[in-house]
């Protein structure tokens, strides 16, 4: 890993809070979101979805639909070639079922018609003959012998023999000998937990416009977190070369990980290819809930041993995750993250992924970690209560730090957990008095963060301004942060830089906006692209001054002679060099392409006070404070926004959000009325405390901040509620009926 990047420096612009570049467009309604794209001659596509949780598709007869006036094309799974690659085949079969509908809402056919009403009418004319199969939506039930098998033959060799055919993979992490550790404990607590699947709840539904021409070229506009990956997936499914498919991302109304794959994009492309006209597909909210990618649903057992003075002697977790109807690797991240906050001699996690008749999981901020850490942090809290120990002291005593061999293998470099815990301990919130019926909870959180493939171009305009082209859709303010870092490096004002997110033809490959990677990795590439441009500008100055290239250096936005021996020349500003560029060798641009390593892990601690109405089971969140290590907060508003947003989503997850399936295996609450994300009046002000422990792997010390904040809320709130009612809650969400039942008010 490249841990030599960071250099201490005084920042002039990084760390300030300038206006966001996309603000005016967004508040005036000018921003172009996915559904805003329109093309001449465009058709409207709609998708027919399975009303059954699990059914064999015996036949699809679209003749009546095709005969309807205004219908231009019908697409089914048979229109797609069957990809050899397992991963691609799964994504494709999720976009359009083949042979079997695997969950309620699974796409089985699509139409393109001249308008929405015709498309809707056509859907009703498609006759699908189903043979209904037994279904299973609960992860534990799916693991039992005799459970309906969602997909045959998907079990990897690492799954022990004799398990249900729904178990697709197994993973183990850890070190030491937990049994020996438990023997040394004064108290051992073992608990089982369940967490419901939740949805990212982004406001903008998926939308795509595809235009395939008869000579085999295609354009695709869509709302996505990663258009290069969209191109890879769609080109694979459509049998196209990457160069022939150009994907342009729209503005994005939230993603949180849910827009890191495709659902409607290949369908729109196939409809357009068959119809010979552009086709737009926009999901309804009902479709978003039923057929995009919620989180895993989980069932977890955790066992932890502790000495009287609060030292954890061993930890063990058994994690059963279901990523829906397809194999899913999120379990591995859950297993790795479960005990990451602790420095443990004996630790082990065992994980299984299980198929159920639910939609295919997609990422949701720190995928897999919130659930595992919820279970671990709940048991740690229970031990603290039982042993009468201060929960922050116990975390401090066991905290992972520089040199700790992490529970998932690597040894940590500089990390911010201890500093974060200490900040929480010092904060007035931690010792503020609580009234009768109120209680306080806390939890640590962790996320790995990611770097990845990144490519940035930086163009110096002849008027002295700068245009930056990057390839990652901006979901959290990254254009502002990228501009700030370039401004810092070039020494020109932030306002003179405009950063855009370009299509797949304009840049080399950029990994998806995920893993909290963009401010870190695109930032790093931007800094290096700026340095590349600076080098070129120094060269131009050297040329003008007729001195050696090495004799010129860059200071405060200008080329200056490096030392007295270089000669005496007045500084030549970026604007002056740019103005002369046509005469000194042509346009000036900087580039950087890299597969970024050195993403720094990030830790957070959340403190929350709640009050529970013992007669109705309603939980009120009274006060919330977040402490998180950001490495370096480039634009603190956005860092705070990520922290607050994560807490809000976590509050929803902890208290009310859940995928509710009926006995028939159909989703009962496919809308924001009954899928209850918090409303503004449900929330207290959320205070944020940013810590800056520089990441050695980034020139400015930046760590990703987007995912860690959704990790601690589940346990922090559950710990607070459990303390308030005097009973340990072991299931999420802690909806009012569950709380009344736990208290014993209702049977």
């Amino acid at each position, binding site marked *: 890993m490249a841990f030599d990047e960071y250099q201490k420096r005084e920042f002039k612009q990084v760390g300030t809070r300038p206006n966001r570049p996309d603000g005016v467009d967004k508040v005036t309604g000018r921003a172009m979101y996915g559904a805003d794209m329109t093309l001449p001659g465009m058709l409207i596509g709609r998708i027919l979805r399975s009303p059954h949780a699990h059914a064999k598709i015996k036949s699809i007869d679209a003749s009546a639909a095709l005969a309807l006036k205004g219908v231009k094309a019908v697409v089914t799974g048979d229109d797609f070639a069957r990809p050899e690659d397992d991963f691609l085949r799964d994504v494709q079969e999720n976009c359009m079922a083949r042979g079997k509908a695997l969950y309620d809402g699974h796409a089985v056919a699509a139409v393109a018609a001249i308008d929405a009403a015709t498309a809707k009418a056509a859907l009703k004319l498609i006759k699908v003959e189903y043979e209904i199969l037994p279904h299973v939506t609960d992860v534990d039930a799916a693991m039992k012998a005799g459970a309906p098998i969602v997909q045959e033959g998907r079990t990897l060799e690492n799954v022990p023999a004799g398990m249900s055919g729904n178990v697709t993979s197994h993973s183990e992490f850890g070190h030491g000998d937990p049994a020996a550790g438990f023997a040394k404990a004064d108290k051992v607590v073992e608990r089982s937990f369940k967490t419901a699947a939740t949805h990212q709840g982004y406001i903008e539904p998926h939308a795509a416009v595809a235009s395939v021409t008869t000579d085999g070229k295609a354009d695709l506009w869509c709302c996505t977190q990663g258009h290069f990956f969209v191109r890879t997936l769609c080109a694979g499914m459509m049998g196209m070369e990457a160069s022939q498919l150009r994907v342009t991302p729209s503005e994005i109304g939230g993603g949180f990980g849910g827009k890191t794959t495709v659902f409607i994009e290949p369908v729109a492309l196939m409809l357009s290819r068959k119809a010979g006209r552009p086709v737009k597909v926009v999901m309804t909210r009902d479709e978003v809930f039923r057929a995009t990618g919620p989180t895993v649903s989980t069932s977890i057992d955790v066992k932890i041993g502790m000495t009287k003075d609060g030292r954890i002697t061993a930890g063990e977790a058994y994690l059963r995750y279901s990523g829906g109807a397809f194999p899913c690797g999120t379990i591995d991240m859950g297993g790795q993250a479960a005990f990451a906050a602790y420095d443990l001699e004996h630790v082990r996690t065992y994980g299984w992924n299980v198929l159920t008749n639910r939609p295919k999981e997609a990422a949701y901020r720190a995928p897999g970690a919130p659930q595992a850490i919820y279970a671990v942090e709940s048991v740690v809290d229970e031990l603290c209560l039982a042993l009468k120990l201060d929960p922050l002291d116990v975390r401090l005593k066991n905290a992972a730090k520089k040199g700790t061999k992490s529970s998932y293998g690597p040894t940590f470099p500089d990390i911010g957990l201890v500093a974060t815990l200490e900040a929480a301990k010092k904060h007035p919130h931690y010792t503020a008095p609580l009234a009768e019926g109120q209680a306080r909870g806390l939890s640590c959180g962790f996320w790995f963060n990611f770097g990845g493939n990144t490519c940035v171009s930086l163009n110096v305009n002849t008027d002295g301004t700068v245009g930056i082209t990057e390839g990652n859709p901006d979901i959290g303010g990254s254009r502002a942060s990228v501009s700030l870092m370039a401004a810092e490096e070039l020494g020109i004002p932030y306002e003179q830089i405009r950063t855009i997110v370009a299509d797949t033809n304009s840049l080399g490959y950029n990994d998806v906006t995920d893993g909290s990677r963009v401010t870190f990795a695109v930032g790093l590439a931007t800094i290096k692209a700026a340095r590349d441009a600076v080098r070129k500008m120094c060269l131009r100055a050297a040329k003008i001054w007729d001195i050696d290239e090495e004799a010129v250096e860059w200071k405060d936005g200008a080329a200056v002679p490096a030392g007295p021996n270089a000669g005496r020349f007045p500084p030549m500003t970026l604007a002056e060099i740019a103005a002369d560029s046509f005469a000194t060798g042509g346009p000036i641009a900087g580039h950087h392409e890299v597969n970024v390593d050195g993403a720094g892990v990030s830790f957070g601690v959340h403190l929350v006070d709640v009050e529970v109405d013992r007669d109705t089971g309603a939980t009120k969140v009274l006060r919330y404070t977040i402490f998180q290590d950001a490495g370096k907060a480039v634009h603190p508003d956005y860092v705070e926004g990520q922290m607050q947003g994560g807490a809000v989503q976590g509050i929803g997850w902890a208290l009310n959000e859940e995928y509710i399936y009926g006995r028939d295996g159909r989703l*009962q*609450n496919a809308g924001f*009325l009954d899928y209850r994300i918090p409303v503004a009046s449900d929330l207290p002000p959320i205070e944020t405390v940013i810590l800056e422990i520089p990441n050695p792997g980034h020139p400015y010390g930046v760590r990703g901040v987007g995912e860690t904040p959704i990790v601690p809320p589940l346990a922090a709130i559950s710990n607070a509620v459990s303390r308030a009612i005097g009973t340990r809650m072991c299931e999420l969400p802690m909806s*009012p009926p569950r709380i*009344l*039942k736990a208290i014993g008010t*209702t049977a």
Partner: protein
Amino acid sequence: MRYLAAQSVAEATGALAAEAGVTRILSGGTDVLVQLKAGMVEPDLIVDVKKLPGMREIRAEAGGFRVGAAVAGAELGEHAAFCAAWPGVAEGFQLIGSTQVQGRATMAGNLCNASPAADSVPALVAGGVVARIAGPGGERDLPVADIPAGPGKTNLKKGEFITSFFFPARAMGASDAYLRFIPRTEMDIAVSSAAVNLTIGADGKVSAAEVALGAVAPTVVRVPAAAKAIIGTKLDDAALAAMAKACEAACNPIDDKRGTIAFRTHTAGVLACRAARIAHERAGGKA
């Protein structure tokens, strides 16, 4: 689908009676339009009744109020005299939706959409409010309590619609209150709800009461036994406990995504007691 903005009551009832297919009346449209968009209903005829004479008026009548069927939540909420007399009705109606929805939503729509969880209905029932109904055969009056027939169903006959509600004159020391339970703080559907309308006599004791529960049965339920439990009391703990018990006994809810049978039953009693205390305080009662 045909749309008719009726100019007279006769035109509206006539068109509704003559239509062989599915009809809907358009008041605020906050249920109808949502259902249309979701594909839940495809009416052949929609009759807009908002423009009919008197439909948006609030007037004094026989010491009480006559409220036009198309009066929106925001309008009623601004009528100080009405809100002072019927705070429970006003708060139930105004709980519906958001500011935007309040500008459109009506009590008649809320009642005739016939959701067991409709927020304005329990207080109307507890208040003994009477609906005036226009139909092909003329006008008739029907207590609000008799209008819901089950989820999505009313006892109105073909061609009929509500033109106004009559709120009787208030006795001295009378007031009402409405409470609902929702897992969030707003923008949600009642999991259970309760309205209490009561009068405090000269002796400081409850002299008359009506209790109605929402979301705990196929229609709103009147609970005379709960009312009886508090009549003649100053809402002491024993009276309230008896009231809660009576409410629980009157519940016949379902288990669904919004709540369990046990939860709905228990909270209906809790809310009735809390609403009774609020109504009592509003009526000037002292514990």
